[in-house]
């Protein structure tokens, strides 16, 4: 793998060798169909810290041992080449012990209900159109295999379950202890200003952060599922921060719910859902009780209803928080907010669908380092046409902010079309235009993909981005990266990318090289990944 950075005056060539050392030792030949061993390695550009909008060059390697329905072990290590840091995640799962216990140890994520109180974090870029309602269903226990321990819990989780013919009941207790580092001054004063979310990134001693502390989470969820139609969960967990000696450390000092900070958070909720082929309904009331110099209790509710048939689909979802509500491990915002989302789609013919989405969010307290309360509304109209030979997606979006401190409305239109020219050749074209104030920025791109066989494909693409005024565009150079999210372009640029991909069953290889050139510099980036199972 190599990376080239050049500019008009100065050209710097930085070459890094990616060493893929694959050691297949003799014992592996003993494994057969019942045992799967795999290795994965690669280099990519990714965003690791969700509070930053900056991607880093990441070297990744890992190994998997899987005995289906019995045991699995996963180890992933990453080296951040830009920051020269190293981290890893691992997890071990023992499944179906005595027919009623699953056990997971290591790095894992939990997702209770719709993620209102406990859910897997997802990265939200600065793209004004990337913010969406965070309410979603996921598996309750999700082992973390990213190599980045920042956003996963670390400890043990059991799942006790009993399945009947049309009913499953379960209880999942968990314990997590995440070691992080704070400054000596903060440690001695017994409090930090930052949130646990920010503290989560301090996974190593660095600079002033030399004193180890432990973020402790424990609790559980009990649930019942019938016929895949009804799903109930009740959960409770507590969050604490302590030094090694057991010394209490307060966090979130001077925050909206407490001036002295939080010493302990108790969080709980109920989730009830009905879902069949046509109708889905759910409701999740929850509470947070923060113990600091006083006890502050807040409430929130996530809810949703949807209906669909062959002709239409309609759904409305929302989240309503009280002013004192705080959810440190929510999949969405940690602070109180009001969110509505309304979606409606009509499909008058099986190949055509059109509809609209309206999404509005309003914070109840100012965000981190902000003095005003944010709020915005996004409207979207979309249409899709899907035939055997051609797929067309079209949408028009508008985001408008409630707060006068924020930018003016942003309008964006997108059009993409995929054509199947033959069994082996595919063409994809896309274009975007974004208007903000008087500036109109735009994007045009095309991509050709050739399939050598059912397993291997080569894609090549060109993207032109034109930026006018203070109107940055969030875009990807096509063909898109498998890892990094979209990039912010503040000035006009050309981009060329080539991508070779092989995938057969679980084995895959992928390499992508991209060159981006703007007025002042040219940057080349390569990324690759290899996954082998034996």
């Amino acid at each position, binding site marked *: 793998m190599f990376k080239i950075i050049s500019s008009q005056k100065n050209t710097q060539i930085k070459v890094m060798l990616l060493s893929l050392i694959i050691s297949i030792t003799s014992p592996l030949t003993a494994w*057969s169909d019942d045992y799967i061993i795999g290795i994965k390695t690669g280099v990519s550009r990714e965003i690791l810290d969700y509070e930053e909008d900056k991607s880093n060059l990441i070297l990744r390697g890992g190994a998997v041992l899987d005995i*289906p329905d019995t045991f699995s072990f996963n180890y992933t290590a990453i080296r951040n080449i830009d920051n020269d840091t190293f981290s890893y995640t691992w997890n071990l799962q023992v499944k179906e012990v005595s027919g009623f216990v699953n056990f997971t140890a290591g790095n894992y994520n939990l997702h209770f209900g719709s993620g209102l109180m406990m859910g897997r974090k997802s990265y939200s870029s600065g793209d004004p159109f990337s913010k969406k309602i965070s309410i979603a269903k996921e598996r309750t226990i999700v082992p973390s295999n990213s190599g980045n321990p920042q956003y996963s819990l670390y400890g043990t989780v059991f799942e006790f379950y009993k399945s009947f013919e049309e009913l499953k009941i379960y209880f999942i207790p968990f314990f997590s202890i995440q070691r992080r580092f704070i400054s000596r001054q903060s440690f001695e004063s017994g409090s930090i200003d930052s949130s646990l979310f920010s503290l989560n990134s301090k996974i190593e001693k660095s600079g002033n952060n030399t004193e180890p502390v432990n973020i402790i989470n424990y609790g559980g969820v009990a649930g019942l599922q019938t*016929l895949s139609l009804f799903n109930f969960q009740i959960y409770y967990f507590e969050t604490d921060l302590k030094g090694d000696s057991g010394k209490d450390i307060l966090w979130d000092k001077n925050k909206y719910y407490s001036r002295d900070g939080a010493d302990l958070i108790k969080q709980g909720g109920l989730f009830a859902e009905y879902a*069949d082929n046509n109708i889905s309904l759910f409701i999740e009331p929850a509470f947070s009780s923060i113990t600091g110099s006083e006890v502050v209790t807040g409430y929130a509710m996530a809810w949703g209803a949807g209906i669909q048939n062959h002709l*239409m689909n309609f759904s409305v979802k929302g989240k309503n928080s009280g002013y004192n509500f705080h959810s440190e491990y929510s999949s969405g915002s940690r602070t109180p907010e009001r969110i509505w989302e309304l979606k409606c789609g009509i499909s008058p013919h099986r190949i055509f669908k059109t509809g609209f989405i*309206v999404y*509005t969010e309003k914070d109840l307290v100012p965000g981190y380092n902000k003095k005003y309360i944010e709020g915005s509304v996004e409207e979207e109209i979309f249409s899709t046409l899907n035939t055997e030979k051609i797929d067309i997606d079209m949408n028009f979006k508008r985001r408008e902010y409630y707060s006068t401190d924020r930018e003016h409305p942003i309008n964006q239109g997108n059009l993409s079309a995929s054509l199947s020219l033959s069994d082996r050749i595919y063409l994809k074209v896309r274009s975007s235009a974004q208007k903000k104030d008087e500036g109109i920025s735009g994007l045009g791109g095309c991509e050709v993909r050739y399939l050598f066989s059912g397993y291997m494909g080569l894609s090549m693409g060109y993207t032109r981005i034109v930026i006018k005024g203070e109107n940055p565009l969030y875009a990807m150079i096509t063909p898109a990266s498998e890892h990094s999210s979209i990039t912010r372009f503040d000035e006009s640029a050309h981009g060329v990318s080539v991508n070779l991909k092989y995938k057969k069953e679980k084995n895959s290889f992928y390499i992508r090289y991209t060159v981006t050139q703007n007025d002042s510099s040219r940057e080349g980036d390569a990324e690759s990944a290899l996954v082998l199972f034996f």
Partner: protein
Amino acid sequence: MKIALLIYAAIVYQGAFEYKTGAPDSLFPMQIAVHDYSSPVVMLNPALLPFADGFIAGSSAGRPYTNEQLTTAGSAIQYGSGGDFGMQFSWDSFGADFYRENTFSLSAGYSIFPFLNAGVSGSIHWLKIDTGEINQDEQIPEGGYGILFAPLPWINAAFYQTGIAALAGKQNSEIIYPERSAGVLLKPGKGFSLAWNITETAALYANTFSAVINPAPFFSVKGGYCRENSSFSAAMGILAKDSMGILAKDFYISYGLKFHPYLGYTHSVGITYTPGSRMESLYYGKPLFGPVRKKININTASFDEIKLIDGLSLISAERIILFREKIGPITEKGLMQIGLTGDEIKNLEKNVYGLERTSRSKEGGEKYTSKKKK
């Protein structure tokens, strides 16, 4: 007193009677030209009255913007022939103890042609303010007219003009703002409609969008959005039928929730007596609330049961039976061996249970999947 002065300032600036009916099914606190009429609702545009089917009488009450002093109330009696003509008498009230707007309206609509309805309304607006410092008691007659064009069964386009006396330049133009609204209603399928209206109010041109779905013949759900003030609204109604037992029959009970990002929530409830009324519901192709996703045990189900699984071909169903007969309980790996793709297996797993795990072969007598080498 503060709220009294604010309301009075609003009247001086924009006029009174801006806040329209507070009935739950009325998704927006403003006049709109066309709306869904598949459930028993108060018709806002008299040109819609010919669509009323039979007699209804109802009342509603609400609390705008969760303000303890503000209330709304209303009642209506309506009769329609279900196509030719209809009429309605309604009363709406909005305000607080010291400020009250009452509107009494009589409306009638007639179908001139099968594709064209027209309607007129006459109203008495009664404004009463008594704050000690400000006293006003005034009754203002007003009128309005509406037209509805329905070229096809699935599309209605309508226009509604209120305050025609104020429009003609009478003195009450300082209190009554003549509003006009135009809109389109689409009914792409049974029990489902979409509406878009543009209404000129004293403050702005408001674009309102609404969707109404009747998931069942006794249940209606409505959602609305006004893009100018980013407000959302939702309403639901239940039509009590004989079969429901617990409720008196022929009553339609509704609840509405409106959300304005700055002013807060508005709650409202309504009850309507509607003898013989029916609601057209969505078409699903199979009974609603039936065992649409009841899972079957793939290792004990008959061929007839398996072949009915959505997305599973007849050949695959035959192979599953053959696998069971020749090899043993069906497994995930077995499904792959008989040629099912990953997507087909995922779909199958949604509809069945009892798939034998591959590793269970160690426990079960037959080693049909265990190939572990030594």
